[in-house]
């Protein structure tokens, strides 16, 4: 019954109200079906967007600032990779095959799916209380101590406490909020700012960024930031216990505390 005692001792932990009636030997509900479904759809879309995004960059691995840029103008920087277009000077003696056709089709399709999925997630998170209970830092988080403790635990690569099998710690909450409300909107915005038809209707989307090439460059860096997030996220899942976390996100159930005793 140690687990149940723990549940009562940590009111900010995300535990279904029925948890107190669940015997200690059964697994506990962790992620709702909607969180799980949107998580894995987003995962698939991210992979598709990443692979196709890399393919599109390969056709012109040069980045610029401002409105225009091409091989006759000075780039802000070049990505030191070969290109799939022979007119692009890369220093490599060969040209990669063109993959832009399907890459562009898939990039925009995955973008549609991930945007709609993200909207569904955010709207339902607002209505179900997921946002308030699990994402917004609670009262217990709003002081320096839990924050510094979480940072210290991360720096020491200390495995998470049992409570974290049911709830996100303060660093997780802030990171997820940053990804959901800063990185995702930015990557969508800069993506739309590259669309000649979209900006014809909403020119401010590109002018406030300083131009279409600036939008492309920001899109590249925000994508890199998202990639860094995904890598760290996966590393954390391994550190926290790969199977228990995967099980929680696939089946929705966790018995992590039992595994750990």
């Amino acid at each position, binding site marked *: 019954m140690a687990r149940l005692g723990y549940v009562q001792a940590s009111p900010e932990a995300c535990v279904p109200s029925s948890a107190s009636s669940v015997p200690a030997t059964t697994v506990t509900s962790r992620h709702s079906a909607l969180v799980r479904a949107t998580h894995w759809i987003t995962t698939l879309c991210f992979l598709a967007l990443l692979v196709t995004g890399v393919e599109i960059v390969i056709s012109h691995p040069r980045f610029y600032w401002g409105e225009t840029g091409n091989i006759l103008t000075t780039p802000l920087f070049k990505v030191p990779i070969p290109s799939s277009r022979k007119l692009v000077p890369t220093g490599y003696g060969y040209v990669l095959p063109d993959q832009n056709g399907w890459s562009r089709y898939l990039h925009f399709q995955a973008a549609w799916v991930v945007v709609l999925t993200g909207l569904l997630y955010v709207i339902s998170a607002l209505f179900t209380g997921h946002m308030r209970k699990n994402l917004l830092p609670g009262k217990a988080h709003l002081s320096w101590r839990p924050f510094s403790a979480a940072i210290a635990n991360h720096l020491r690569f200390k495995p998470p406490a049992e409570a974290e099998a049911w709830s996100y710690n303060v660093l997780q909450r802030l990171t997820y909020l940053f990804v959901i409300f800063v990185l995702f909107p930015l990557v969508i915005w800069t993506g739309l700012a590259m669309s*000649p038809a979209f900006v*014809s209707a909403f020119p401010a989307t590109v002018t406030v960024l300083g131009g279409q090439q600036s939008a492309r460059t920001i899109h590249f860096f925000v994508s890199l930031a998202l990639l860094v997030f995904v890598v760290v996220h996966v590393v954390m899942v391994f550190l926290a216990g790969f199977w228990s976390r995967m099980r929680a996100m696939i089946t929705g159930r966790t018995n992590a505390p039992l595994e750990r005793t």
Partner: protein
Amino acid sequence: MTNLSRRKLIKTGLAATAGVTGLGVAARIAQKYGLIPPDHGGIYGLGETLTYASQRMLTRHSLAREFPQSQISKRPFANEIPPLSDAFKSLQAGGFADWRLSVNGMVDRPATFSLAQLKSYPSRSQITQLQCEEGWSYIAEWIGVPLSHVLSVVGIQPQARYVVYYSIDPEWWESIDMADALHPQTFLAYGMNGDELPVGNGGPLRMRLPRQLGYKSVKFITRLTVTDSLKGFGKGLGSASPEGGYAWYAGI
């Protein structure tokens, strides 16, 4: 069967029926208002249809951004072009005096125009960006006759829905819907930055539509066909681009 499961079954059935009916109605409305692109089949059809339909609703009459003279790129980049044919070279040797644009299909008065005739129509210019799907871009002043003017000269028939346009190399062809064909910034361009349109940039005659990526702005235009359906053209996907794996609609 308990009441609960029967109720659940009825609910699910009703929801499924409503869903399927809703999709069917949506598809019919979308078809009627021209919101379905010709390359809607296949695994990427969903994304393409969402993009095209939403942009047709949002951007039907919007104007591409125009820039001040000072933002014209000093060296407009002319992308690689396929090797020029002998037919092109002999026209070039004659100063393109014999270049012809023929217009046919669903028009009242099919016609053939010389460059001199096209230049006799009111000329327009726009300083817009040419954006390539690869990622590069440049800004230039484009001078030409709006496609809508040429279409009004030949008189398009009411059932017309698309304009198909061909390069001198018949393998290189594209098409646009009437929203783009009649758009005031869609030009048959023959000049650039106050001069003739260089061959490298598509001279003597290039389709120019700044609200879509560069590959829709086909170079060396010789023929326009007005039609109500793209089914009979090539593989029926709308243009050479989807046949080569690229999207028909390039407004992104």
